[in-house]
């Protein structure tokens, strides 16, 4: 392979310019520049400049985007193996998730993307997702009966809410604030920072910490771009990406603390006395339906067997 000339990689992110993932990729750019002796760096096109995630995934496969920071649910319909990460309650705790994703299982899932034209570089934290509603506290699955809950456009997310007794309502992200305020939907689900930055907390005042999902985000490179690099150059990209994980985590934790403080200051109700057992039992059909494939079932088993520490 002839060495690729010095260049700036194009990287896409839907988040705004000061978001931890965007900052982390800029950090990666600095590291890459240092490692490559100034040959490579990265320009981040933040805030949907290059399109929605499902579109930028395609553009990454075509080689128009070099690096992409993507939500796992968007990858679910492309790379089968990523489905295990979207399963509700697949991770017992943040420690358990980190252990899995930074270990061999995480590597295996990242490597599974190659046949689809993507090179998995790293997983970024995307926090812990819980339900929020205008005024209904959710302590048991029964509390969700009949609630119209907005979910991401993902089969697993739809199945989870339906199994919990809710009425899953896929809806574009941009419409959720108004729909919550107007009562078109009765709730949605997200992590602390998004609950805060989308201002959904203004219209959905009860945050029930069900912690049903810890789905991460993936940092990927276009395989077309990757294959043009020499093994040494590929090594720089990998190392810079891995070094950005901790930076992302540091920024993320600051963000979570900030968001939590802001939301509590706003006087929102935080429901944290929740027994997760009935929720876990209620979502078992999701596992049967979406993780019955032997490869996925095996991944699920190995994730569950991974100890927390």
């Amino acid at each position, binding site marked *: 392979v002839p060495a690729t000339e010095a260049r700036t990689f194009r990287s896409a992110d839907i988040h705004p310019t000061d978001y931890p993932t965007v900052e982390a990729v800029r950090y990666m750019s600095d590291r890459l520049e240092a490692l490559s002796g100034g040959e490579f760096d990265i320009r981040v096109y933040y805030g949907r400049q290059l399109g929605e995630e499902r579109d930028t995934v395609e553009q990454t496969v075509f080689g128009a985007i070099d690096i992409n920071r993507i939500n796992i649910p968007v990858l679910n319909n492309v790379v089968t193996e990523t489905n295990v990460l979207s399963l509700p309650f697949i991770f017992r705790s943040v420690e358990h998730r980190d252990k899995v994703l930074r270990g061999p299982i995480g590597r295996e899932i990242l490597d599974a993307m190659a046949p*689809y034209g993507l090179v998995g570089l790293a997983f970024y934290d995307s926090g812990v997702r819980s339900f929020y509603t205008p005024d209904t506290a959710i302590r048991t699955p029964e509390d969700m009966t009949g609630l119209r809950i907005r979910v991401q456009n993902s089969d697993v997310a739809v199945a989870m809410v339906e199994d919990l007794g809710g009425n899953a309502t896929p809806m574009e992200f941009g419409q959720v604030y108004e729909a919550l305020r107007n009562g078109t939907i009765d709730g949605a689900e997200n992590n602390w920072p998004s609950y805060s930055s989308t201002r959904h907390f203004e219209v959905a005042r009860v945050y029930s910490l069900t912690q049903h999902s810890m789905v991460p985000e993936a940092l990927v490179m276009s395989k077309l771009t990757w294959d043009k690099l020499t093994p040494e150059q590929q090594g720089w990209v990998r190392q810079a990406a891995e070094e950005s994980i901790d930076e992302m985590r540091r920024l993320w934790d600051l963000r979570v603390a900030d968001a939590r403080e802001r939301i509590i200051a706003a006087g929102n109700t935080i429901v944290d006395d929740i027994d997760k057992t009935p929720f876990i039992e209620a979502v078992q059909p999701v596992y049967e339906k979406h993780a019955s494939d032997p490869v996925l079932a095996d991944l699920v088993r190995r994730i569950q067997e991974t100890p927390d520490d």
Partner: protein
Amino acid sequence: MTSTRPPLSRPSSRCTRSTLPTRCSPTLCAASRRPPMTDVPNDPTEPRPLDRAPGPVGRLLNGAAAVTQFFCTALMVVMTVIISWQIFGRFILNNTPKWSEQLAGVLMVYLTLLGGAIAVKEGRHIALTYFRDRFPVKLREAAWVVCHLLVLGFGLIMLVYGAKMAQLVQAWTIPTLGVSTSVNYWPFPVSGALIVAFSAQALVRAWRNTP
């Protein structure tokens, strides 16, 4: 109460004929009596009649356009039904259909691309002909031909790369619909083929100097 109803189709654009005179050249004169695709400022609310006395190829293309237009009209009705069903599902059945948004979004792409091809045939894509109409005759003809060739070229790209794209995402699935993502890209080759045919038709007519 009686009042004059606005007619379904408007009188054709007298405004342009008088302000932007069609200075015909011998070779393109006949072709421009049936205004070439960009010479009419478009009242998009006005459907253009299909050609009056077509040959066999013309009849075939008219047929293709008519079938496509019928399909587009049906799509509009289906989209209305889908979204109405979504509201009905949420309020009356308290069970929002999961597929409705996704499906309506895909159908809209079909409507856009297929309808866009018909607009090429009917000359309803909005263009700025102010400057071209002031070119000398030879240059005007050349510009007209170049425009049609480039549109034809873009149709080819849609045909070839649309098919390639559909193939690339064959193994992916569209969430909530459970069908292959390539469904998204099928209308590209179809629309591309129609655009190629319709622009080629216009070029051949101008060449043969027939309306």
